[in-house]
């Protein structure tokens, strides 16, 4: 089977890989690059667990071929912070119990990262409307909304989201 070479920047680092055209971006990120923080829920484009940022835009990695990311810039949850050095959005989720099983969380974080870059001070309705993109089965969403509001407070004391 034919393979193609692609060049992708993931979390600021350049990668060159030879892959099949049919390889999904979600599988590329998880298994070619080895970043397993991006999770797979449906492979149908509905749940949003696989949300990453592609050139800064929230994108469902399960609905994209990795070859389409050639020359593009991808950001995954691993770019936000480390377990012992979480960024303000992550810290806010921690403080406000914005996660339970943690599986949808990376997708939520990336979705909200895009929102807060677009608009550093969205109101609750705006947050909810954007949050409607993704499904969480554990939290009932309210604590996620609260987390984003807390993140806005934390970020006021800091520079822009990384």
């Amino acid at each position: 089977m034919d393979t193609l070479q692609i060049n992708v920047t993931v979390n600021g680092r350049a990668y060159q890989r030879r892959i099949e055209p049919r390889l999904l971006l979600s599988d590329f990120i998880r298994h070619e690059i080895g970043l397993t923080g991006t999770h797979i829920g449906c492979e149908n484009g509905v749940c949003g667990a696989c949300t990453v940022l592609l050139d800064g835009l929230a994108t469902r990695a399960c609905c994209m071929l990795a070859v389409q990311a050639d020359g593009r810039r991808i950001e995954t949850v691993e770019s936000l912070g480390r377990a012992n050095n979480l960024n303000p959005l992550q810290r806010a989720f921690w403080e406000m119990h914005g996660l339970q099983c943690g599986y949808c969380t990376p997708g939520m974080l990336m979705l909200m990262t895009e929102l807060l870059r677009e608009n550093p001070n969205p109101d609750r309705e705006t947050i909810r409307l954007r949050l409607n993109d993704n499904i969480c089965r554990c939290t009932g969403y309210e604590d996620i909304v609260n987390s984003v509001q807390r993140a806005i407070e934390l970020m006021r004391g800091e520079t822009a989201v990384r």
Partner: protein
Amino acid sequence: MAEAGKIHSPPPGRQKERPDQRLSVIGTRMLRKEDPRFLAGRGRFIDDITLPNMAHAAVLRSPRAHARIRSIDKSAAEALPGVVAVITGEEAARETGPLPCFANPPVEQRCIAFGKVRHVGEPVVLVVADSRYLAEDAIGLINVVYEPLPAVSDMMEAINSHGDAVLHPERGPNNVAEHRDYVFGPVEEEFAGAAHVIKRRLRWSRSGGQPIETAGAVASFDEGSGKFTIYVNGSMYNYIGFTIATALKVPSHQLNIVPVDAGGSFGSKLFLHKVSVLAALGSRASGRPVKYIEDRIDNITASDNHGSDRIYDVELALDANHQMTALRYKVVDDYGAYFQYGLGTHGNGFSQTVGPYKIRAVGAEIYAVFTNKCQQGACRGFGSEVTNFMIERIVDAAVDELGLDPVAFRRDNFIRPEEFPYQIPTGNLYDSGNYPGALDMALEMLDYKNWREKQQLARTQGRYVGIGVASCQEKGVFSATEFWMLNRDPGFALTSSPESASVKIDPTGKAVISLHAPCWGNSPETVATMVLAEQLAMDPADISVAYSDTDHGLPGTGPGGSRYTVMVTGAVTGAAAIIKEKLKRVAGHMLEADSRDLEFRSGKIGVAGAPGLEVAIAEVAMQAHFFRLSLPDDPELTSGLEASYTYDHPLATLPKNNSDFGIFYPIMGHMCHMPVVEVDAKTGQVSFLDYVAVHDCGTMINPMTVDGHVRGGTAQGIGTALLEHFQYDRNGQLLTTSFQDYLMPRVAELPPTIRIGHLVTPSPYTEYGVKGAGEGGRMVAPPAVVAAIEDALRPLGVRIDTVPITPARLRALIREAEARKGPRR
């Protein structure tokens, strides 16, 4: 027969830690231990496990609901480069036994369908290949010839199935899996003498947990040791994991099951026999580690964990004072193609079958039927959420027909706060509660009177606003008797459902707690840490948590049935008690004080009342580990500092007979939900204006995580009430095969906020008085929401007896009601 009422000589408990003590860690909103790794994207979920030379499996799913497998031509698949093994049901049946089943007699289910397929999605062939992509390519090359059999999709028809339509002919001539009749108390008498009898037919449709992560396993077989290792995102491995070994036809000590983080479960990962056996089968056949992860279609069609699917005919007897005296129901439950938990979901309901009310007699006729659908398993509530729906709907029916007030009626029928512990007609016990208190708290938080006034005003404006009231029980901590007590012949009548914890303190004074059950969002690390920190007055930051595989595991039944927090609290408390004794002995020796005079304070152990006389736990630990010859010469005082404790059910008794099941689920929480909804009567759409949820789960270890469960459970309950439905057509074809059609609530479908109130009636039986809280929201939201919708449409006289109540269904009911009322002015 178990007489309903207060138990005057309550069983003695084993509670050591009283609820009313001063606590410094327990009860706080401590941030979770689990979060940093999940937030950083560094959780360890099943698909994150990679082993060298690992291959990938996929399953050819049956396209047919019911058929004999005539032939399988797998030659083209086997020839595809990159394909390592292609295994049919016949081959699998040589290498594996049936999957574990709690029903007795068991119903045989194979990891790969053998001889015939019984539901759409059932595995027919397992393919192992270098990648999942290739495995799916290979599946496309397999040719299966089926001989169709009549498909049964209607549960009422299933009762009368015969011939080829029977799924399990060895079980009987039709598709009745079980038919039981139960009488708890003087049912006939009460109905005969009743002043009022209220009747309803109710329909609870099939929904399911559908966590965002599916089930999966990674298995490897070590030729050198002859040992299997299976990583799986399920639970109960340290309880009945050996049954997987049996299914694999290997000795149980030649199987090690390793837990991983699970991305949600809601019951569906309770015991993942099938994916474990499939992965291991693939591994043995291919000589390589094999990963089998269900994709979403595999999961929706064949998770083995659909929820209850019931039709109830229920009757309620009331006396002349509007006191409910007896409840009688006939229920038909569509179990799908197999019967792994037997009638367990009905036994579960028996634990709280009178709700919070003083009903003194219950009669139940239960039909469990087989149909060509995915089997039922565990879904948040495990059947008792349906019991709650039945009770609250018939209560609302009585209120409606007798022209009563929904709040006053409930209050008048509640079991009173002074009547605990209370025995219900099935023999189970309610440990503590304050149902009027919960109702009052909800009324106040909602500002019920004000909403009733707003409702009146809205009606004059032609708007349909409704307030729902539901008061329901949340059982916690099942006893193992629940697994077999409804079997005609009990079979393996186990009575243990323990939970263990191991605590190690290292020479520098840091603690590691080992848990023997997994994390699936239920905050086990946080709970265990908080309890140990409380017990030892340690800094939670000095505690970490590990998870034991079966090689190192102690008995651990795992999360489910709202039991885990209670049980792990008991286990950690038990282990802590042992370690504290040893720490005190060593510290006492170091301080030259009597160990009985010592207390734990701020990471130190010191003489009570003597602030200067203390020594840090770290110093004591160092001493205990390394300085044996400096310690008293007592052979019991061994080097080291660790303890394990297995905590058994705090209060369980054996069933006596079929009218008295003993105490099997006594840790009884309670909820009162009051949603306020507005119905767009023209489109049948429902939106939330307010929502109050009062929960009593006894002492809360961490109120923050309890609130999280309340919100999440309520969201699932709202989904069950309005949206979620696995729909099958008459031919057993599943119509809702993806998240496009199986609709779960997003944020827009939920109330803008759920206002939570906590009422605390501690359990007299558990450590610290904790009760379960995991399932509650889903167990009360459905009747509460349906009641609110009915209340909104009261001017039209709409009655809702089915969930989910989708816009199309609701609009149809409204149209019918309008037609009954005559043409509009």
